[in-house]
C-alpha cells in the first residue's frame, strides 16, 4: 500500500498521540483529586496553608511522573527512527504508544489518592507530619510501578529490531503486547491508590502503628500488582515467542484476543485487590494486635479475587501457545 517509511511515520505520530493522550488522563485525575482533598482540609484549618500546599505539590509531582514517562515515549516516537524499517515496525510503534498511554492512567489516579489523604492528615494531626509524608512518598512511588511496566514494554517495542518477525501474524502480536500491559496496569494502579490512601490516613490517626501499617501496605500493594504482572508476562510472550508466518485472519486474531483477554482481565481484579488491602490496612492501623489475623484474611480474600485474572491469563496462554 504505502512504503514502510511512510507507514512508520504515520503510525509513529499516531502512537505518540495515543501515548500522551491516554497518559494525560490519569495524572490529571489524580492531581485534581489531591487538590480537591487539600482544599477540603484547608477549609477546616486555613492557617496551615503553607504545609498543606507544599505537601500537595510534592504529591502531585509524583502523580505527574507517569505522565512524564508518557511524554518521553511520545517524544521518542516523534523524533527517533530506527535504522531498519519494515512494515511491522509501524505496528510496534502503535503498540508502544498504547502500552505507555493506557498504563499511565491507573498510576496517575492511584498516586493521587495518598497525596490527598496526606493533606487531610496533616491538617488533623500536624504533629505526625513527618510520618504521614514518608508513608505518602513510599505509597505513591510504589503506585508508579504499573506505569513502569508499561514503559518497559513501550521501550522494548521501540528499540528491538523486529524485522525477523513475519508481518502476519506479527502485527497482532505487537498490538496485543501493547494492549495487554497497558490495560492491565489501569486496575492495578487504581487499586494501589486505594491501599496507599488508607495507609496514610491510618498512620495519621495512629502514628504508633506506623511499622505494621507500612508493612501491610507494602504487602497489599505488591500482591495488588499481580494483575499488571500477568499482563506484563503476556506482553513479553507476545513479543518474544517465535511465531511462524501465517496469513490467515484467525492466526492474527488469536494474538489480538490474547492481548485483550489479559489486558481487560487485569482491570477488575486490580481494583478489587486494591479494595481488599485498603480495608485490611485501615483496620491494621486501628487494631495493631490483630495484624496476623487481618493479613491472613486479606491474603485469602485476595487469592480468590485474583481468580478471574488467572482465568484471563489461562485463556491468553491457550490462545498464544496451544492454538
Amino acid at each position: 500500500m504505502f512504503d514502510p517509511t511512510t507507514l512508520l511515520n504515520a503510525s509513529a505520530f499516531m502512537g505518540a498521540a495515543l501515548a500522551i493522550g491516554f497518559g494525560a488522563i490519569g495524572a490529571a485525575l489524580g492531581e485534581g483529586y489531591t487538590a480537591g482533598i487539600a482544599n477540603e482540609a484547608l477549609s477546616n484549618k486555613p492557617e496551615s496553608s503553607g504545609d498543606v500546599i507544599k505537601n500537595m505539590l510534592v504529591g502531585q509531582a509524583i502523580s505527574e511522573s507517569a505522565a512524564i514517562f508518557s511524554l518521553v515515549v511520545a517524544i521518542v516516537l516523534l523524533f527517533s527512527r530506527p535504522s531498519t524499517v519494515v512494515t511491522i515496525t509501524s505496528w510496534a510503534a502503535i503498540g508502544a504508544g498504547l502500552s505507555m498511554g493506557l498504563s499511565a492512567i491507573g498510576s496517575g489516579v492511584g498516586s493521587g489518592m495518598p497525596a490527598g489523604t496526606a493533606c487531610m492528615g496533616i491538617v488533623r494531626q500536624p504533629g505526625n507530619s513527618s510520618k504521614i509524608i514518608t508513608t505518602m512518598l513510599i505509597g505513591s512511588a510504589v503506585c508508579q510501578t504499573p506505569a513502569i511496566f508499561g514503559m518497559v514494554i513501550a521501550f522494548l517495542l521501540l528499540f528491538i529490531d523486529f524485522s525477523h518477525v513475519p508481518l502476519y501474524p506479527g502485527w497482532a502480536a505487537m498490538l496485543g503486547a501493547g494492549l495487554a500491559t497497558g490495560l492491565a496496569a489501569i486496575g492495578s494502579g487504581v487499586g494501589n491508590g486505594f491501599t496507599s490512601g488508607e495507609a496514610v490516613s491510618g498512620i495519621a490517626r495512629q502514628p504508633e502503628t506506623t511499622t505494621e501499617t507500612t508493612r501491610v501496605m507494602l504487602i497489599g500493594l505488591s500482591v495488588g500488582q499481580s494483575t499488571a504482572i500477568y499482563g506484563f508476562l503476556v506482553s513479553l510472550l507476545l513479543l518474544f515467542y517465535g511465531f511462524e508466518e501465517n496469513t490467515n485472519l484467525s492466526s492474527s486474531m488469536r494474538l489480538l484476543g490474547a492481548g485483550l483477554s489479559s489486558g481487560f482481565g487485569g482491570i477488575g481484579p486490580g481494583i478489587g485487590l486494591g479494595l481488599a488491602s485498603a480495608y485490611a490496612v485501615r483496620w491494621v492501623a486501628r487494631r495493631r494486635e490483630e495484624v496476623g489475623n487481618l493479613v491472613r484474611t486479606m491474603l485469602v480474600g485476595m487469592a480468590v479475587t485474583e481468580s478471574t485474572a488467572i482465568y484471563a491469563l489461562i485463556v491468553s496462554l491457550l490462545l498464544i501457545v496451544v492454538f
Partner: protein
Amino acid sequence: MEISGPDFIKGMAFLGAGIAMGLGAIGPGVGEGFAAGKACEAIGKNPNEAGLLTRTMLVGQAVSESTGIYSLVVALLLLFVV
C-alpha cells in the same frame, strides 16, 4: 491477508474468546475484592468471629464468581467447540 469464510469465522471466534474473558473478569474482580475488604473490616471490629466471617466471605465471593465462570465457559466454548 487472504480471508476465506471459515478462516474469518475462526478469527472472530478467537477475538471473541479474548474479549469475553477479558471483559468478564472485570466485574467479579471488583466485587470479590470489595467483599474481601469488608471482611477484613469486620474482623478488625470483631476478631473473635474470624472463622464465621471468613466463611461468609468465601461463600459470598463464590456467588460473585458465577458470572466470571460463565465468561470462562463461553470463552472455552469459542476456543474448543465452535
